[in-house]
């Protein structure tokens, strides 16, 4: 009896020593080197509350690279505890077999209220009612416009265009040529490569149209693409009309060229992520006033809304309950009202916690910075359905390339919009079949 008691005592002491031992969580982020500081600040606040848990935030390259490195790290047996994976990597992570679905932790933890997460974010990262990852940095595209150039062109900066037709007409009015016929100021600019594929998905959702079958892969694995539709064609034509009539300039691959065209006032309107509001406002400085408008939509078509973009946080199965529990606590902290409000105000990503939005509103933040409100409103006013939940498939990275190629082929007049969209859809169907054959 005494012996048994002794053993229990020893076990309890040992256990408490083990559990009290400080641990360091590894948190890989792919949102950008500039975001390491705000993220680490948040994590340090978590450490202040939980002195035993230190968090090491590491920038592991862009979203693509972070996913690639995660795969290598998992295969090498040395994975991070938390990793930030972009929207289209969701299905790959769900199928990976190396993660703990967030829902499993939520079900065990009555202290967490899932209803604080705004529905749009919850829908995107859920499959058949099960939440797989913790929404974190969420954004959607908006149009930034130069209010000074609007005035110069005789347009009302407080009444920006809302339909495709108005937008195209205004872009033309904002285009300025010099005496020898060279364009010195464009009406509109955008990046190809990663940006335009994302805009295409968003403009489909704006028209409440689907991208993949099986309700965007939400009610079953998607095996056919359905974006070769009147809605898809409208998006392609919208961009192409402005490219061909010379009022829009294709800024090149990536985000930066388009941004510098806008900031150097060589383009009056820019489509970009809300995540960069802070950067663009600072870049414009005192040179000109930046306006933010909702994405235009084609008139006469039912309005859907925008899809949540950005990334979410995944819990990797490290087979170490103590680490996993600590990581879950961190995720809860990052989703909390204060953390989301702080993160949103520092970056331009909108809060995924409804209480954070309310808090920022009451504090007068949105009154001072109405630009930030546009993104939140655009999302919250969206119809919650399959179209605005976004497409889910492991082949999304491939499909995005096919869509990007369609745009390139149309812009360089190698194909008509109809041909290009059909070719992209055929390619997407092959990619879907290829991915699905693995599972």
């Amino acid at each position: 009896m005494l012996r048994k008691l002794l053993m229990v005592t020893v076990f309890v002491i040992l256990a408490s020593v083990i559990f009290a031992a400080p641990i360091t969580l590894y948190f890989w982020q792919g949102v950008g080197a500039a975001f390491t500081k705000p993220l680490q600040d948040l994590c340090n606040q978590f450490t202040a509350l939980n002195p035993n848990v230190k968090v090491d935030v590491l920038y592991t390259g862009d979203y693509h690279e972070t996913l690639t490195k995660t795969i290598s790290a998992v295969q090498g047996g040395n994975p991070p505890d938390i990793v930030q994976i972009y929207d289209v990597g969701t299905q790959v992570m769900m199928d990976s077999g190396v993660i703990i679905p967030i829902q499993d932790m939520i079900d065990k933890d009555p202290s967490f209220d899932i209803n604080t997460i705004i529905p749009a974010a919850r829908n995107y990262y859920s499959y058949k009612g099960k939440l797989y990852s913790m929404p974190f940095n969420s954004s959607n595209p908006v149009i930034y416009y130069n209010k000074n150039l609007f005035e110069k062109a005789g347009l009302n900066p407080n009444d920006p265009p809302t339909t495709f037709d108005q937008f195209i007409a205004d872009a033309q009015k904002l285009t300025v040529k010099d005496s020898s016929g060279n364009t010195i100021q464009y009406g509109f600019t955008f990046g190809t490569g990663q940006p335009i594929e994302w805009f295409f998905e968003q403009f489909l959702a704006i028209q409440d149209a689907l991208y993949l079958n099986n309700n965007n892969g939400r009610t079953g694995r998607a095996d056919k693409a359905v974006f070769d539709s009147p809605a898809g064609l409208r998006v392609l034509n919208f961009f192409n009309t402005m490219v061909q009539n010379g009022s829009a300039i294709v800024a090149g691959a990536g985000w930066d060229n388009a941004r510098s065209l806008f900031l150097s006032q060589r383009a009056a309107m820019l489509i970009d992520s809300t995540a960069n509001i802070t950067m663009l406002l600072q870049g414009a400085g005192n040179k000109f006033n930046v306006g933010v408008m909702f994405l235009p939509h084609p008139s006469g078509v039912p309005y859907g809304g925008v899809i949540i973009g950005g990334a979410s946080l995944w819990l990797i199965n490290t087979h170490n309950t103590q680490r996993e529990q600590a990581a879950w606590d961190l995720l809860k902290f990052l989703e909390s009202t204060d953390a989301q409000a702080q993160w949103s105000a520092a970056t331009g990503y909108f809060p995924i916690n409804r209480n954070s939005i309310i808090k920022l509103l009451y504090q007068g933040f949105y009154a001072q910075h109405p630009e930030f409100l546009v993104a939140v409103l655009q999302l919250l006013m969206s119809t919650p359905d399959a179209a605005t939940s976004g497409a889910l498939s492991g082949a999304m990275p491939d499909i995005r390339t096919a869509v990007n190629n369609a745009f390139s082929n149309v812009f360089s007049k190698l194909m008509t919009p109809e041909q290009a969209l059909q070719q992209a859809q055929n390619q997407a169907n092959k990619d879907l079949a290829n991915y699905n054959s693995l599972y």
Partner: protein
Amino acid sequence: MILSRKWIPYLLLAPTFLIISVFIYYPAYQSFFMSLYKVSPFGTSSRFVGFENFLQLFQSGGFIQSVYTTLIFVIVTVGIGLVISLLLAVLLNDKIPGIGIFRTLLFSPYAVSPAVAGVLWAFLLSPVSGYVSYLFLIVLKIQPQWLTTYPLALIAVMIATIWQNIGFNVIFFLAGLQSIPQSYYEAATIDGANAVNKFFRITIPLLSPIIFFLIIMNISSSVFYSFAAINVMTEGGPSNTTTTMMYEVYRERFFYFNNGAASSESVILILIMAFFTYLYFKFGQKAVHYQ
């Protein structure tokens, strides 16, 4: 003593062989192996498919397109690159004041990391702030979209690659030129040969081993090392027109996580390069011509 002498070469080769085994042979073996499988992104499930990956490559337009792009890319960069390098080397072979400075300047692009070179060219050709774009605008009154339209994007990437390789080629040509005895040229001058004749009948034939060596080296470097410039400048676009085979392998593996497809593409690349290496060893020594 005899035994140890026999073993010394192997002993000396061992470190190199060890490194090559770990970093080249083992991954190559893995590629062969994986090219017969379809593997999920995280490697958690895989399925033996035989030669299906290879079959799909030849059915999909993407791979075939990348083969054509690679052919154009290699022929143009190696051809034009070597001609420019040879002309520069002949000029640099003269004894003019400050020749050391010119040689150093011409070699310097080779010392720049390929990724940095790509960034430099992307800056120069950028439609927003690029000097080259600006020059075209004020001199020719046109605004070419260098990095976003076909075929300009491919041309831009080829220019960057040629620029990078010139230094390397010039150094080898210079070494070759300096080993040609001056007496041949003197004899030719006495016989009344002009500069063009001397160039084609003395310089070129005596340089042929170097030319052959450089062709092989340039082919392998433009197939394998052109990656950085493409990745930085165009990411293979627009519409895959700057996607070479090497870049296609990268995209399949690191963008789309199609491990099987990427492996089968790299197997094909290995076979092609093995063929060129074979050519080099087989004909490398015989390609010398004296006239």
